[in-house]
């Protein structure tokens, strides 16, 4: 899969390496911004309040 993507990137080798690094960085940003905050609702050790937990 990743090999297939890498082979289909345009340009010479160095450009493909740069492009894949940029793609990786973009995926990382997306995960930190959206995926991880969403996932954190399934972990428990962030509940520190008493009574009803009001999530927002």
């Amino acid at each position, binding site marked *: *899969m*990743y090999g297939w993507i890498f082979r289909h990137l345009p340009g010479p080798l160095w450009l493909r390496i740069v492009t894949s690094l940029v793609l990786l960085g973009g995926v990382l940003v997306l*995960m930190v911004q959206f995926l991880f905050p969403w996932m954190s609702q399934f972990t428990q050790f*962030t509940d520190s309040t008493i009574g009803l937990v009001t999530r927002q």
Partner: protein
Amino acid sequence: MVLLDKGTASAVPARGVGVLRKLIKIAGELLITVGVVLLLFVAWQLWWTNVESDAKQSETIRNFAQELGGSGGPVAPAPPGETPPAPADYGPPKVAKAPGHGGTIGIMYIPRFGPDYTRPIVQGTSMDVLDTLGLGHYSNTAMPGATGNFAVAGHRQTHGAVLDNIHTLVPGDKIYVQTKDGFYVYVFRNNQIVLPSATDVLLPVPTQPAARPTEAYLTMTSCNPRFGSQERIIAYSLLDHWQPASAGPPAEIAAQVAKALGKG
């Protein structure tokens, strides 16, 4: 999509075997990806959320310091430094009005948690406050200095981990709350481990529904055990004395206060 790729078709002896091999390869790559993402998630939650929250909390403190500067706050009336005198009596503590949700109430200094422990106290205990701004004040409880229960919550882990060391408090430890009115000095009394449903710890006299408060309590709640949330750890403190902003910070934390406010 990938299955139709002809790039490696020449190496495949029979069509069925080739497809199966590719399917297994893709499944393997996906599993590795899931593993890497989960590891990144752990790193994000246990480390990066702290970095983010620390930055936000420093910003909150800077803004608070600017507000103080505007209202002629503690401009270092400076206790000269020699033997700190016994705390003077400034009368009954001034109690501020509660700010709106997300508004800054003040700063908490807890020397037991280290000389840099300077955390903002913000109104509200919803996740948007606790996840970024530090200590959240239960908005239905008293304000600092008031007779009754001033209750705050904070994360034990992640998002700044503001109360990570709550179990290290020793009876007699001082906890300083700075508001725009002055400094409230609380003395830690005891810990309690309760179930998450034990709302009676937030009562004006903690855990005593019938009692009428005669003292000012500070109650801090956080999750327990450190990396779980099956229980809550509660730290009770009592107001010892207060001093108005015009009297300057208590000598013990003067340097820390100057540092916290000087950043702005």
